[in-house]
């Protein structure tokens, strides 16, 4: 992919790349760039480093804000053409630039993190220096934050690829420079991956590349610009789930061989000042309404799609009131496995309908999670998620059977 580039210092080689993907982040990129530069200077002073803003043709002055931020560090700006938006496309440009620069260490930080600090750069970069191939952060999270990870992405990826990576689609990473070869040669580069599916795509490829994976404790929550989770979900959800299903088809030989799961390396266990999570409110009434509305729209599709034990179970869940609402994890796992198989057999635009039809069921699963864990501490809720993952792993033989 050809990209637009401005490289005022004419940098042709670098040991380390700190990348900031953006789309119209003029208001936030300076802060992130400054914190990143401090982190590079403080912890990686012996390395030749460069900060790369990989942009999606922003029109709000992101590039000018990036270049005008005083850092004392070399900077490169690259951008997709106007007709090729998406975070995935931004990062693909980054991979090509990393290969060109022959960088050994790459750290990616999203631009809109309000509380990003220099030690985040260390925690994502140092495990790579010490031999890891791919680093995912472990942010401090409230039990109802990032439910897409807790209820779907983490248990599904864990049972498929056998690695316990708790926050695999978080948007910030560290990785070994030569991993870009695996990224750039991946057989999967779908519409979903080119947008918000890019994060699960990267983690999945790292797992399949068999590089040592590390989880790095950041010791803080990740505080973004305020977003309405319900407003973004109809766009985000199908892209993430689409990317996971697209990857399942490409890597079926791998995940067929995986049984149970293994933990990963941990970095940052000596972090002393651990901040508390930001309380997250969940509107259970809205979740329940959206779940029930799914039956109006998709009931016929669901009855045809799912295993004969799932159909009656869904009707039973439907009949439960909000007070007693419960969505068994085994049913949820079977739904995802059946859906993955149907998705693999379908073509677009049928696939788009399948992706969308899963959203109300996911919201029902989140509602169930909230009900089950409402009196639990964050640690107890984490144990609950771990048990859900075990159920997914125990149910995996069903996936192997339906996939045949």
């Amino acid at each position, binding site marked *: 992919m050809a990209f637009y580039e401005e490289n005022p210092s004419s940098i042709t080689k670098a040991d380390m790349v700190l990348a900031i993907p953006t789309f119209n982040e003029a208001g936030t990129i300076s802060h992130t760039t400054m914190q990143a530069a401090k982190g590079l200077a403080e912890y990686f002073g012996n390395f030749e480093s460069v900060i790369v803003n990989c942009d999606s043709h922003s029109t709000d002055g992101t590039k000018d804000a990036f270049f005008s931020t005083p850092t004392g560090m070399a900077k490169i700006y690259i951008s997709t053409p106007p007709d090729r938006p998406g975070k995935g496309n931004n990062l693909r440009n980054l991979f090509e630039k990393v290969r060109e620069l022959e960088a050994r260490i790459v750290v990616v930080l999203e631009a809109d993190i309000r509380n990003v600090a220099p030690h985040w750069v260390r925690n994502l970069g140092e495990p790579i220096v010490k031999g890891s191939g791919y680093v995912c952060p472990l942010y401090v999270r409230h039990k109802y934050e990032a439910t897409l990870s807790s209820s779907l992405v983490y248990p599904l990826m864990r049972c498929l690829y056998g690695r316990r990576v708790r926050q695999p689609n978080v948007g910030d990473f560290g990785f070994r420079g030569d991993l870009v070869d695996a990224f750039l040669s991946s057989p999967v580069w779908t519409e979903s991956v080119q947008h918000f599916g890019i994060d699960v795509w990267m983690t999945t490829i790292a797992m399949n590349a068999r590089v040592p994976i590390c989880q790095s*404790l950041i010791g803080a929550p990740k505080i973004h610009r305020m977003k309405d989770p319900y407003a973004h979900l109809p766009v985000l959800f199908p892209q993430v789930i689409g990317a996971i299903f697209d990857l399942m088809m490409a890597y079926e030989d791998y995940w067929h061989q995986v049984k149970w799961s293994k933990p990963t390396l941990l970095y940052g266990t000596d972090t002393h000042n651990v901040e508390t999570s930001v309380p997250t409110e969940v509107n259970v009434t809205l979740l329940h309404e959206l779940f029930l509305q799914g039956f109006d729209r998709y009931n016929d599709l669901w009855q045809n799609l799912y295993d004969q034990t799932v159909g009656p179970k869904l009707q039973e869940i439907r009949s439960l009131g909000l007070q007693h609402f419960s969505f068994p994890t085994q049913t949820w796992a079977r739904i995802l496995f059946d859906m993955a198989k149907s998705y693999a057999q379908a073509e677009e635009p049928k696939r788009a309908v399948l992706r969308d039809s899963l959203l109300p069921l996911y919201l029902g699963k989140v509602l169930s999670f909230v009900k089950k864990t409402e009196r639990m501490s964050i640690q107890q809720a984490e144990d609950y998620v771990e048990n859900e993952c075990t159920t997914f792993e125990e149910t995996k033989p069903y996936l192997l059977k339906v996939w045949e």
Partner: protein
Amino acid sequence: MSKILVVDDEEHIRLLYSEELKEAGYEVITADSGLKLLERIEAEKPDLVVLDIKMVDYNGLDLLQDIRNRFYDLPVVLSTAYDTFKEDTKSIAADFYVVKSFDLTELKKRIAVALETRLPS
């Protein structure tokens, strides 16, 4: 036959685990502390380690980090008298954890799963 290294500073626990796990068909070797544990693992190449968390001279969670750093994929089952250790994030680097008991059903189950875990090489 899978080889299991039991690391515990209490002799009666080492004896109990050895006898029961041998009966279950495993080869068992033991260590009474974390002293030179990594060298021992390097030399004896166990298939799995059962690691006590609270030993007099060693913290099992720190030893777990050392094991993970050097033997990335070696299965480790943490064994402890208390379950409060779960509040320490270091414990997530273990394959499993069990609370010490004279009934080793849970431990044997976890060992079997950990040894059965398969990732393509």
